[in-house]
């Protein structure tokens, strides 16, 4: 009975022609490299390659455009950019605004995150939803809202303050605040930088081991000392990531400076690039590309610093999950701390929305609001009575729905393929798709002009170029969302399906899709919100022939009324909130087995 070491009992030779034909998919097989691939994988790879092309080609065009002009090697774009009279002023302004707002945001965001994660000041849903703010209230709406509140003469809040001051005998004609100043500009940048810090630092605090803090306290360090010597240093990777995110966002942020910077006569890079491309005739593409290079340079430097930080930060301990830190009791500081959180919420969301609503319903912008006369008439007229606005809303919604759907479908398929096979090609494809995330939106938009606006594609001024640009710009985020959704589905779940006799397609439809739907829908909502609220790419790529909300807002800002502007910003906010909420509720319901399973 004893057989030594699995020596074969009989040797069977298979003549080549008797070998059954290998088959791995009902529709036959494809060959990529030397491996046979199922149709499902083939489609996934094909889509992925297409998306990778869309991501890489425009960026490559920007880089080539920097050094090649009219087929000859030259640094003309850089020279053009440098010869802009206020070149250094532009860079100085941009750096000042971004650095100042980021530094402040770093402090504020960290404090808010710490209050929410490690103390008893947290306020449940209110604090948890902080990072959703820029997601639901587009920066353009916030910027317009704050102009309506703090413009020196007609600002609603200034009006209220002046009325109050009048009562104590101080009478002012304007002010006391002015949004069209350096501090005004930095203030609104700050509002939109804080959520990034909050998001990253919260994640860092959640992942880092709370027993480090406890250890420090056991050693006799005070709470403050613990906070500064242990807690925050342990999250420095997250802080680094937050800084990178803020640089990346800040340098290409266009909506806030176009509204506030223009009024304050503070020029920044992003606004100038758009002006050179869209509002100069003929467009000065060379100079715009040159300035884009400066933006990339700044982001690149931050990125390098971040890498060094990551490398030196190896020691940061990430403890096991499920360790629950004992929340620090703030005692009499609890309510002041909560006031801080609520205050941020009020300033970032409530006040600007109130201002938008009041002005939109009032029909014109004044400090003497007749509260009894507020009505929807003006609102209706400026939105539904305006053909261009209606077109822009229709276009925006359909492009965003289409873009988010295509984006997430591609992202999900690519994630699946990447998870299953780790070949070079697949990895390169995945990297390429995520590449645009390290380039400012503005630069990619410029790349799209260079790549697709002219011959042979001739897509300039069409909705197609907008759709493609949105997909390229926002796919990295979609892809990350899909990756994490797919990673949650263990390998054995799909293998069990194959064992049960199901092929690739059926396994995808029955096992993967239902399990990743919640994550994918969340990603979809994210893409939709960003595409619908996009101003940066739209400013460069849209026009009268392919009107979208972002571009219409800029037009109205240039030559419409503030009430119209407020209405449009409100409509945008409403669409975003409604669609995102619907999508998330839907995802929740599809994933109801999750709730039932929690014991």
């Amino acid at each position, binding site marked *: 009975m*004893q*057989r030594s070491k*699995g020596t*074969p009992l009989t040797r069977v030779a298979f003549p080549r022609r008797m070998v059954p034909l290998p*088959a791995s998919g009902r529709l036959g097989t494809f060959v990529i490299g030397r491996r046979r691939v199922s149709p499902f994988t083939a489609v996934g790879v094909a889509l992925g390659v297409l998306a990778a092309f869309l991501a890489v080609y425009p960026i490559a065009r920007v880089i080539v455009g920097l050094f090649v002009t009219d087929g000859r090697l030259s640094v003309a774009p850089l020279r053009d950019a440098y010869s802009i009279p206020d070149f250094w002023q532009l860079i100085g302004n941009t750096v000042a605004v971004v650095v100042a707002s980021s530094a402040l945001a770093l402090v504020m965001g960290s404090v808010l995150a710490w209050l929410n994660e490690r103390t008893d000041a947290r306020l449940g849903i209110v604090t948890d939803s902080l990072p959703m703010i820029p997601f639901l209230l587009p920066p353009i709406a916030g910027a317009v809202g704050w102009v309506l509140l703090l413009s020196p003469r007609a600002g609603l809040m200034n009006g209220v303050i002046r009325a109050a001051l009048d009562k104590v005998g101080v009478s002012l004609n304007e002010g006391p605040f002015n949004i069209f100043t350096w501090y005004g500009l930095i203030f609104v940048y700050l509002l939109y930088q804080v959520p990034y810090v909050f998001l990253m630092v919260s994640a860092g605090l959640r992942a880092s081991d709370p027993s480090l803090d406890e250890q420090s306290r056991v050693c006799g360090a005070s709470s403050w000392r613990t906070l500064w010597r242990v807690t925050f240093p342990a999250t420095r990777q997250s802080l680094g990531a937050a800084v990178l995110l803020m640089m990346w966002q800040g340098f290409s942020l266009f909506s806030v400076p176009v509204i506030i910077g223009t009024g304050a006569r503070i020029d920044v890079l992003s606004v100038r690039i758009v002006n050179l491309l869209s509002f100069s005739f003929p467009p000065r593409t060379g100079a715009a590309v040159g300035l884009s290079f400066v933006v990339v340079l700044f982001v690149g430097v931050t990125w390098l610093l971040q890498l060094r930080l990551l490398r030196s930060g190896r020691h940061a301990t990430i403890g096991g999950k499920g360790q629950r830190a004992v929340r620090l009791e703030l005692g009499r500081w609890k309510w002041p701390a909560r006031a801080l959180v609520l205050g941020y919420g009020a300033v970032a969301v409530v006040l600007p929305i109130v201002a938008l609503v009041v002005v939109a319903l009032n029909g014109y912008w004044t400090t003497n609001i007749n509260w009894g006369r507020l009505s929807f008439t003006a609102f209706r007229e400026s939105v539904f009575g305006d053909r261009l606005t209606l077109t822009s809303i229709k276009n925006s919604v359909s492009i965003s729905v289409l873009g988010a759907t295509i984006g997430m479908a591609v992202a999900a398929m690519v994630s699946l393929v990447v998870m299953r096979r780790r070949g070079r090609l697949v990895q390169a494809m995945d990297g390429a798709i995520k590449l645009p995330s390290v380039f400012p939106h503005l630069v990619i938009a410029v790349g799209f002009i260079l790549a697709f606006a002219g011959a042979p594609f001739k897509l300039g001024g069409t909705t197609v170029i907008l759709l493609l640009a949105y997909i390229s710009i926002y796919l990295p985020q979609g892809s990350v969302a899909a990756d994490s959704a797919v990673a949650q589905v263990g390998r054995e779940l799909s*293998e069990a399906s194959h*064992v*049960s006799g199901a092929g690739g397609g059926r396994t995808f439809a029955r096992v993967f899709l239902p399990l990743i739907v919640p994550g994918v829908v969340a990603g979809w909502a994210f893409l939709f919100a960003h595409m619908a609220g996009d101003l940066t790419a739209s400013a460069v790529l849209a026009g009268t022939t392919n009107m979208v909300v972002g571009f219409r807002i800029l037009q109205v800002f240039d030559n419409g009324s503030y009430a119209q502007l407020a209405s449009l910003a409100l409509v945008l906010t409403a669409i975003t909130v409604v669609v995102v909420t619907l999508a998330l509720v839907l995802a929740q319901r599809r994933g109801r087995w999750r709730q039932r399973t929690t*014991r």
Partner: protein
Amino acid sequence: MDSVAAPRRVVVSVRDIVKRFQRAGGSVTNAVDNVGFDLLAGEFLVLLGPSGCGKTTLLRTIAGLERPDGGTIEIDGRLCDSSENGVHVPTERRRLGMIFQSYALWPHMTVFDNVAYPLRSQRKHNKRDIADRVERVLTMVGIPELTKQYPGQMSGGQQQRVALARALVAGSDLVLFDEPLSNVDARVREQLRFELATMQRDLGFAAVYVTHDQSEAMGLAHRIAVMESGKIVQIGSPREIYDEAASRYVANFVGTSNEIRGRVQSVEPDGTASVTTVIGTFVGTLSKPDIAAGDEVILVWRPEDGEPSIEEPASSNRFRAVVEAALFLGSHTEYSIRVGESRFRLWRASRRQLSTDAEIWVTVDAASMRILRP
């Protein structure tokens, strides 16, 4: 081993299977190294071995989830893998059942949908037929009332039963198990092991079962294949593996054993040999015919094979020892005994205790004393 009557059909035939993995550092390991065996219809084969020896990899290769780097696999007479000819039949066409260590139940499907899945994949059953079969198999595994539950709402033991039902529902001839009982507590494990054995004997499917628990292997297997770093080092019935271990590795991995070093003095034609050791000369059974006089060997015997006595026994295979400690374990008592520098273990079912520090004689049958290469 159940008597193997006449020629039985070969369900799986594995030949010279090699599976290599590239480690993260770039080095290559042979996770499965030239393995071959035949599995007969209705046979229960257990792959036994320590962690990392390649059991899971071998099982996954049979299932078609890994593609072997060498060798062939035939299932039901159909060539499923042949690296030479580039044949690889995908898992879904191999018509087998498999139970994963994590059960791999789909959390978004009810128990019914989970179990019906293999039938629906076949696309040849109507609704009624599916409902009937699912109900039957759920009753068989003892959870007919749970059809509408989601896996997340069930205990580990119940999930285990659902996974079993899903593997059996399509009536495959071959079911693969990857440590299915390692996630449930000891009592449920014993119960499930018993039920599984009964079910397998009743339904008559062939099974390949991976475990590193030797008592599980003993209780379930018709045959056990003991693996060591990718190779099968011994394959045979539980009794053969236990009583006739071919190497020290197998003897130590399956059950507990006592070892004495020694040198072969003379070899007898009947397969026995006498061995001199520091505690005397013993007659034992050779594990390999090529062991010759003068060889360094190890005598291995099981703790339950030592017969203690107070008076000097008549037999020759004996030595004198001191009882150092007694450990009452319920079904038996374990004694630690000492002879000079060597310590051995002795198991006795008898209620009458040997007192500590007592001087005793221990006799070990020549048949129970295995002579192995060191």
